């Protein structure tokens, strides 16, 4: 074999702490290495051209690129090899940036380490063989999990492109958090006026199947061919015949039910349609509060329903769907702010969350848009907003910035002045984060035109004094303690991953971070992809985002789905297991450990049992290879011999120094 080695400087990223030319020099002595050089930016156009030229000039059979993580640029260099006429799997990478130059400052040690990593890669490459992909069919249907604005956007984009969309929404209506908002920043236009039509489009689109009050139960399969089971939760109302007339709501005697849509600001009836613009506009019974379901008495709704669609016996049902791609748009939930004892931990009725305040201001909310104190219904004249409650706070394990609270706080302060012209608003902030088109101008307008008093500092405590709340904080710009008496305190509560997100991630086999947000494939270059092929992300499920960014991501995820579906056949990764039938003794232990059912038993010509890999199903984990005692089933590109070559390259006497 003729191997070429390319050691990348990555500008000074690597070269600053690794002597790249001497790594290349050392590599020339490795077995089968016929060419070695260092290069400024291997991934750049001249860098890639250099590789291609060297392959041709030196008749190379394979290349080692020592540069950044293969998780970053392996596809780049594989394409370069293909352009030079080599098989893409004749590439090995040595990660001398993330694993060497960026984590150590000692140039001598780093250079030694880099040289050894190149050696490992070269030794493995000597055993690489060309691999070729297989093709398989794609199911051109997409599952969108979550019917918030990001999910809606992804669904509509896909549906408009002619793709069948299955949308699964946990609540009884789509719309997500945006449906609860009064106005949106920085234009202060009505949230439901811009979201409502999109929700209706979802309901009416011939290509969209909507499962509300449903959750994803189980997912199996792989890109292009996922099998999804959806649990349709019992609503105790036959939605096929419910017309959404609302008569049941009028008559239901259980009027103290928790009103999740209104964030608990008001109560609702046990059977309810969460809000007038709900999609689907269907009633559902909250069994916790329904007297019929709890005590067996009542049943008023069933009596008054003109279409007789109430069914107290209804059970959850499971429906199966086949899809080729999945968009996860599960959104966010608010942090449980009651851990903040110093803000009353939920004991003071006039300390509310920002989302509750949205409902209080919303014209279709429980107070018809009149801001009233929950304690006594009085109109507040002094409103204090406290930012970063559950954001940027390590002590409650939420060190990240929730991103959009600065903006909605400014919006709420402005709206407060609109609603109550003789009111004063105070905003306690740590930093104003308003990087967006027209955003910073908006926060300035809140201060300059609306006279909102911005105070830079955290609030240490809120306590009641008579019928007002005393807010004691700091003004670090004035350099001292400040106190203000408030009629209403609004907490800009930070966001966290929606409840159950981690659980869903496990079903989707995608990673999530320690806060439950789904991990994108690359923080910059693959923000809507995941590490699982065919699964994409949109909206706050990946991290806190405002509406325009969520919508943008919804469209981006849709574009990814459409790109995937643009081909009729997908290519399977040839890095799958393969059985050497001569060695296989037919014990089929591999079938027992394979998580994907990718191995079947076949008979050879002599009638002996043998294992065989279904290449499109195999995901390339290699569990089978370790299971097989005879080494008969080998994961291609990660065979025993290839890994042993790496081990042997590292552990041998001549490497001692």
């Amino acid at each position, binding site marked *: 074999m003729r191997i070429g080695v390319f050691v990348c400087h990555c500008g000074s990223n690597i070269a600053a702490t690794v002597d790249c030319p001497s790594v290349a020099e050392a590599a020339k002595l490795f077995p089968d290495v016929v060419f070695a050089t260092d290069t400024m930016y291997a991934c750049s156009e001249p860098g890639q051209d250099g590789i291609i030229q060297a392959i041709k000039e030196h008749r190379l059979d394979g290349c080692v690129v020592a540069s950044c993580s293969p998780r970053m640029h392996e596809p780049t260099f594989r394409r370069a090899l293909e352009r030079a006429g080599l098989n893409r799997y004749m590439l090995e990478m040595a990660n001398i940036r993330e694993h060497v130059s960026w984590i150590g400052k000692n140039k001598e040690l780093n250079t030694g380490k880099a040289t050894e990593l190149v050696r490992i890669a070269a030794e493995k490459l000597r055993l690489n063989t060309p691999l070729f992909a297989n093709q398989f069919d794609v199911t051109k249907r997409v599952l969108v999990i979550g019917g918030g604005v990001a999910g809606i956007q992804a669904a509509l984009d896909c549906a408009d492109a002619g793709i069948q969309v299955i949308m699964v929404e946990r609540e009884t209506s789509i719309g997500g958090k945006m449906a609860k908002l009064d106005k949106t920043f920085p234009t202060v236009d009505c949230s439901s006026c811009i979201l409502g039509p999109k929700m209706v489009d979802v309901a009416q689109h011939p290509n969209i199947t909507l499962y509300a009050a449903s959750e994803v139960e189980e997912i199996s399969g792989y890109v292009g061919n996922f099998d999804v089971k959806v649990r349709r939760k019992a609503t105790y109302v036959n939605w096929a015949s419910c017309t959404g007339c609302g008569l049941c709501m009028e008559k239901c005697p259980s009027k103290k039910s928790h009103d999740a849509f209104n964030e608990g600001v008001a109560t609702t009836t046990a059977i309810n349609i969460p809000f007038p613009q709900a999609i689907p506009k269907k009633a559902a019974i909250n069994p916790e509060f329904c007297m019929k379901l709890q005590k067996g008495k009542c049943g008023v709704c069933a009596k008054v329903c003109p279409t007789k669609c109430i069914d107290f016996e209804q059970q959850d049902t499971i429906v199966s769907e086949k899809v080729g791609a999945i968009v996860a748009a599960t959104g966010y939930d608010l942090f449980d702010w009651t851990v903040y004892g110093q803000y009353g931990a939920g004991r003071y009725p006039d300390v509310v969350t920002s989302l509750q305040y949205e409902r209080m201001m919303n014209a279709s909310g429980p107070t018809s848009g009149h801001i009233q104190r929950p304690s006594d219904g009085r109109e507040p004249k002094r409103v204090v907003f406290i930012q970063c409650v559950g954001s940027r706070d390590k002590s409650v394990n939420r060190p990240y910035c929730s991103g959009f609270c600065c903006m909605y706080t400014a919006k709420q302060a402005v709206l407060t002045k609109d609603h109550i012209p003789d009111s004063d608003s105070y905003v306690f902030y740590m930093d104003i984060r308003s990087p967006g088109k027209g955003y910073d101008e908006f926060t300035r307008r809140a201060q300059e035109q609306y006279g909102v008093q911005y105070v830079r500092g955290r609030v240490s405590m809120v306590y009641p004094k008579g019928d007002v709340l005393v807010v004691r904080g700091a003004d670090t710009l004035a350099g001292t303690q400040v106190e203000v008496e408030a009629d209403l305190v609004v907490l800009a509560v930070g966001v966290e991953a929606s409840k159950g997100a981690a659980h869903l991630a496990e079903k989707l086999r995608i990673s999530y971070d320690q806060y439950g947000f789904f991990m994108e494939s690359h923080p910059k270059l693959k923000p809507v992809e995941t590490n699982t092929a065919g699964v994409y992300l949109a909206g706050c499920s990946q991290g806190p985002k405002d509406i325009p960014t969520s919508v943008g991501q919804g469209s981006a995820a849709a574009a990814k789905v459409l790109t995937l579906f643009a081909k009729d056949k997908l290519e399977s990764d040839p890095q799958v297991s393969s059985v*050497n039938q*001569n*060695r296989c*003794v037919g*014990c*089929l*232990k591999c079938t*027992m*450990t394979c998580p994907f059912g990718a191995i079947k038993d076949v008979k050879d010509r002599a009638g002996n049992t043998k294992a065989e890999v279904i290449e499109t199903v195999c995901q390339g984990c290699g569990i089978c290879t370790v*299971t097989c*005692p*005879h*080494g*008969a089933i*080998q994961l291609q590109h990660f*065979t*025993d*011999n290839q890994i*042993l070559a790496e081990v042997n390259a590292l552990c041998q006497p001549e490497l001692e120094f």
Partner: protein
Amino acid sequence: MSTLEQLKEQIRKALPDLDVVIGWEQGYDAMHATPLFIREEADIDRLIWSPLCVHSLGTYLTGLTKSSKVQKVGLVVKGCDSRAIVQLTQERMIPRENVTLFGVGCSGCLSHARLEYKVEQGGHYVEDMHAITFNGDKVEVAVDGGVESFDFDTVCLEKCLTCRFPNAIATEHFAGEEVPVAPKREKAPSLEAFEKLPLDERFAFWQDQMRRCVRCYACRNTCPMCVCRDHCISTSRNPHWVSQEASTAENFMFQMIHTMHLAGRCIECGECQRACPVDLPIMLFRRTMVHAVKDTFNYVSGADPEATPPLLTFKAEEDNINERGW
């Protein structure tokens, strides 16, 4: 009727349906038994059953059942031997329906190595032993015109001291009385003694032992659980785990392969160590792994044909794996 007579009777009845039945016969001298292949009724008379019948005959099974000439095999099995069959059945390595087992109860087998050592210690030559009698707890050996007597426990196989399966299990036939389950020791004495050594002394010990290994593969060939046969990764180029270099380290690596491949499968028959021509105490490895499997997964191999071997399954929350807070 004695156990042997019963056994012969059972074999005689079953033989017409079987291609071959494997048992033991008297070997080349009074001290040894060798495997007996019974193909016709006349062969049955040569069958013996005594503590000399050490061989685990299951080791022939995987080869025999693959042969086109042999369809149905009968096998005489002790308790330990039968565990091998159970384990092989579990792993679907043998067509169990084609195998007929003739089980016996066993009170322990002779360790030739220990006996010979004792005889030599007594100032005799091993070659001069010419008769052996098993008399309850005593073993009497005729040597040099006299008789040396030993406690059976001092010359039996070490596995017999800890044996929890004296009676063959899951067999079609059973001859004689069942032997009570009465292990004399909780843990093999040699392992107990070895575990008292500090790590560096253990390493030095193996350095010394592994140097002596001649890689004859007798341990592998006699192991009833070594089913890879021609495809053992210790002697293959692809995959190429062990180099052909004659070095202590490579010998050791071979032993590690054997041990790891027996993890959760080894039924402690001890055949590997018995077969070793240079007497490497490799049962120390086996037993340690058996204990680890028992402690971690509460699993005893070769005890239940329906069980799933521990390395072919998992629990999301393992009961006994302490992940040490890394």
